Each structure stands twice: as structure tokens, then as C-alpha cells.
């Protein structure tokens, strides 16, 4: 499944890299501690977080993360958005909390496409 499909099914608000949503998602990782994500997220994962600071973009690009979804309708800081646009990293926003969103994505990814 790609991010485009997730965005449609879960009504996600796409903030950046709208042209880069077709990459296949390899799984997901939920976390707000950057060292944890750095060590444990896998290439191609979708990253679910409440962190809005621009450092999330550097972590996503270092880890080849497919995209970042901010929970609880958190808006990216202006610098974060600017960086995500520049580095072509999909940044999306969901009104759900991390638990609900992770559960939904887990179930969607379990379906073979």
C-alpha cells in the first residue's frame, strides 16, 4: 500500500511532497523519541509522531522513511514544513491520536493490495 491510498482511506491532510506519495509502505513506526526512531524505524516505514519540530525531517531523510504523519491535528512548525517541501518528504496530518492512527494503519497494511 502507498501513502496516497492511506491518505484517502484515513482522510489525512497532505502538507508536503504531494508528488511523492506512491512509494510502497514497508510498515510503520510510532514514536516521539528521535533516538528510538533513529535506531528502530525501518526504511520505507510510515512514521507516526506528535513531534512537530524540524528535526523530524532530518531523521526521516536519514532513515529513508516513506512519510511522517502528525497526530492529534498537530500542525508542523513553519521550518518543518519548509524543510519537508525542500527534501520532498511527505508530511501528513491526522485528527486521530497515535493509538487510533497506528491501529488503523496496522489494519490497512495487513490487507494485501
Amino acid at each position, binding site marked *: 500500500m502507498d501513502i496516497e491510498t492511506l491518505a484517502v482511506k484515513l482522510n489525512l491532510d497532505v502538507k508536503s511532497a504531494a508528488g511523492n506519495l506512491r512509494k510502497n509502505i514497508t510498515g510503520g513506526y510510532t514514536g516521539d523519541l528521535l533516538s528510538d526512531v533513529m535506531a528502530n524505524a525501518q526504511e520505507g516505514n510510515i512514521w507516526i509522531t506528535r*513531534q512537530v519540530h524540524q528535526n523530524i525531517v532530518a531523521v526521516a531523510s536519514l532513515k529513508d522513511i516513506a512519510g511522517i504523519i502528525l497526530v492529534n491535528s498537530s500542525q508542523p512548525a513553519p521550518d518543518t514544513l519548509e524543510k519537508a517541501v525542500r527534501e520532498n518528504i511527505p508530511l501528513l496530518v491526522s485528527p486521530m491520536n497515535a493509538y487510533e492512527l497506528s491501529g488503523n494503519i496496522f489494519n490497512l497494511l495487513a490487507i494485501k493490495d
Partner: protein
Amino acid sequence: MPARETEQIEFQRSFYVEGGNFDYAGIVSTSIKSILKQMELSAEVVRKSAIVSYESEINIVSYAKKGVIMLSIYADKIQIEAIDEGPGIPDIELAMQKGYSTASPQIREMGFGAGMGLFNIDSYSDKFAITSEVDKGTHLIMIINK
């Protein structure tokens, strides 16, 4: 003193890291990663190098005045060295423990300060050495086998 490295260096580059400036935090590790990727090193080597260079870069930004990260590529290994001028680490054994952190609330708010940096550097390096002098600075040597 360990014997000086006599092995042929294939590539070497140094990067300056400014303490306290989180706007560019991660830029050095991003450059290191793209150099290693261009050199067509294995995904595992690139992944481990990215983790250890990121954590050492963030520590310089978080705690030190300034520092340098040096990437050296040898025939059989990658060496990443992080040298800073800063407060140093009074108790290295304690600092290495998973969960130990002196990060300020502002730093924690950005998602840093989990106390996992040095622990992860140690576990993702094939060889790791750390020395530190209080009020002078800290010196890390991380080696990842190709």
C-alpha cells in the same frame, strides 16, 4: 597510545558542528550518509554509520560549544570521529547507561534527551572508544566494518 593508523585512507572529510544550533542538527550525518551511499557501501553499513554519526552530532549540538566530525573510509572499515570543545562528561559509565540524560526541558521537547545516544552508538559501532575531560571536551571514535 594506540599505534597510529598506517592503513591507506581511501577518503576523508571533516565537518564542523556548531553547539546549540538545532536548525542544522542532522546536516552532517545526512552528508555522511549520502557519501557512503554514493560509494555503494552495503545498506547495513550505511544504516549503522547514519545512527552513530547522528547521535554524536546531536550530542555536540546539545551539550558542546563546537566540534568536528571526521569521516575516514579505509579498505575494510569506516571510521567516524567526533571531537568537541565543551563541558566534557564527568562519569562516562553513567552517561553510557540507557536512559541517563542531563538534557534540558527545551531539548527534550524537541524529542531529544532519551538517554539512548551513547548506548546506541556503542551497540551500532563494531568498535567504540570514548574519552572525555571535564571543561575541555569529548572525543568519540566509532568504527564500522565494511
